């Protein structure tokens, strides 16, 4: 168990650190230490040094990881809800409705979606709420496809036919009999959606369109680090490494879970 889920353990460890560190560190993520601007690693109370305006790197890293994961989980949940609602409706009703609903999904898949999200961010200001609603609305497509496939398959099973024959209303069948049976697959895809969302959020923040200062996220930290990498490579390498580790670990776990259910 421990060895098999090593990637998940790493992520959980990072999450714990991100939650605990801000409580333990003497510095706040947006607090400026005027006596230690650009201090190197392991100097005084700054374990990883400070950035170009004297903010503690470790505190910023912890705060950024928190925000990135929070946005990711919220957006993944939005995509889960929209995806299940859309996919289950299409799969359950079937026929023309299904055809039309899935055509819309196919059509949306082909769109340059990131560009629409970028437009959304520009248009409606860059609130953190909008960041995850916007991302969630983009990432539901795969979930809808998967859920629809599952519902189509389940619909033919005897226990569903029996429930229908007994006169159970559709909504009850979906909630009581279908949803519990697709929970595993949905969980696997939820886990794969989280790294996707982390990627999109960081991408937007990197371009200056996502989370805004004074809040910070891994994408913003990577951007700040990249701008200053000739002076302080640590500023790029630390958040970059945390981001890549989170993405890789969640992808490995998600794919493993998906393969188990399909």
């Amino acid at each position: 168990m421990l060895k098999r889920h090593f990637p998940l353990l790493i992520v959980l460890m990072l999450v714990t650190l991100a939650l605990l560190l801000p409580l333990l560190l003497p510095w706040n993520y947006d607090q400026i230490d005027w006596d230690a601007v650009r201090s190197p690693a392991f100097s005084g109370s700054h374990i990883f040094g400070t950035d170009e305006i004297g903010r503690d790197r470790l505190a910023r890293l912890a705060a950024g990881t928190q925000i990135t994961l929070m946005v990711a989980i919220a957006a993944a949940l939005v995509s889960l809800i929209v995806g299940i609602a859309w996919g289950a409706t299409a799969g359950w009703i079937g026929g023309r409705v299904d055809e039309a609903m899935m055509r819309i999904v196919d059509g949306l898949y082909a769109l340059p979606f990131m560009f629409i999200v970028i437009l959304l961010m520009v248009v409606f200001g860059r609130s953190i709420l909008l960041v995850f609603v916007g991302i969630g609305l983009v990432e539901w497509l795969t979930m809808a496809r998967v859920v629809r496939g599952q519902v189509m398959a389940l619909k033919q099973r005897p226990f569903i036919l029996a429930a229908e024959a007994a006169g159970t209303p559709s909504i009850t069948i979906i909630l009581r009999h279908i949803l519990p049976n697709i929970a595993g697959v949905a969980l696997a895809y939820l886990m794969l959606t989280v790294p996707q969302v982390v990627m999109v959020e960081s991408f937007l923040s990197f371009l200056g369109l996502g989370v805004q200062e004074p809040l910070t996220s891994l994408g913003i930290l990577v951007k700040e680090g990249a701008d200053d990498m000739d002076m302080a490579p640590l500023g790029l390498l630390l958040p970059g490494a945390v981001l890549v580790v989170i993405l890789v670990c969640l992808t490995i776990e998600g794919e493993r879970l998906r393969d188990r259910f399909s």
Partner: protein
Amino acid sequence: MLALITRRIMTAIPTLLVIILASFFLMRLAPGGPFDGERPLDPATQAALQQAYGLDRPLWEQAWLYVSRLVQGDFGPSLVYRDFTVSELIAQGLPISLMLGGLAILLALAIGVTAGLFAAVRAGQAADKTIMMFATVATALPTFVTGPALALLFGLWLGLLPVSGTGEGITWLIMPVVALALPVSGAIAKLTRAGLASVLKQDHIRTARARGLSETKILFKHGLRPALVPVASYLGPAAAGLLTGAVVVETVFGLPGLGRYFVQGALNRDYPLVLGVVTLYAALIILFNLFADLIYGWLDPRMREG
């Protein structure tokens, strides 16, 4: 084949129109305009500018005008880069973006298919597991991390490659293309391996073996072609991913491609520029999906009818 192309073009037109109109009205909902500078313009100048660019007319009329000019190939003037039309900006930026994207997809195909092939031949062995581990890691590498990291390592520390801009020769292309290609190559490697591993278990491969064909011939002539079908269907999403990735790569490496114009244009409320780039991107993605379908049909003749 021709039927497929015509049908695709017929569905492409309404799709494009929806994208254009959606982006058009979305942009206009945004507060602020292209002429909001540091100092507010005096109201008369502001009004004159609005009138000159037709921004004072009703929205639907502007939308209609935009689309009807677009049909004639006129993308309109840029509102922020005052001396340029959008067509001129696109003509400057598009070749760079296309070169980046095109080279990246070729590199990703070369690396991905080769790696997937090796892994499938050694299915279940250590080599297979190692390659697949690397592929998973590669798919999870965001360009905005790999880009700066490559620039730091090869540009600043080793001094082998230029850190930014389009210098002499082709060395400036290496890092942007590698950063773009890495995640795509990982995905292609996985798809190739999965496809090939299942094809190699099929009857026609066993028959070919029984008839004494060499392993290389079996692999390349009978195995690879059907195995690449999933790869072909991935090319459409991959193209969309590359275009988005190009935005980051162009920003990181300071390349004057379309992606940078798009981000700058969106921030500056340069309506015609943003609309032009979105339209172009959408058209490119639709075109590439069609292209991927044609490859698909070539790989698997059963698909040609559908």
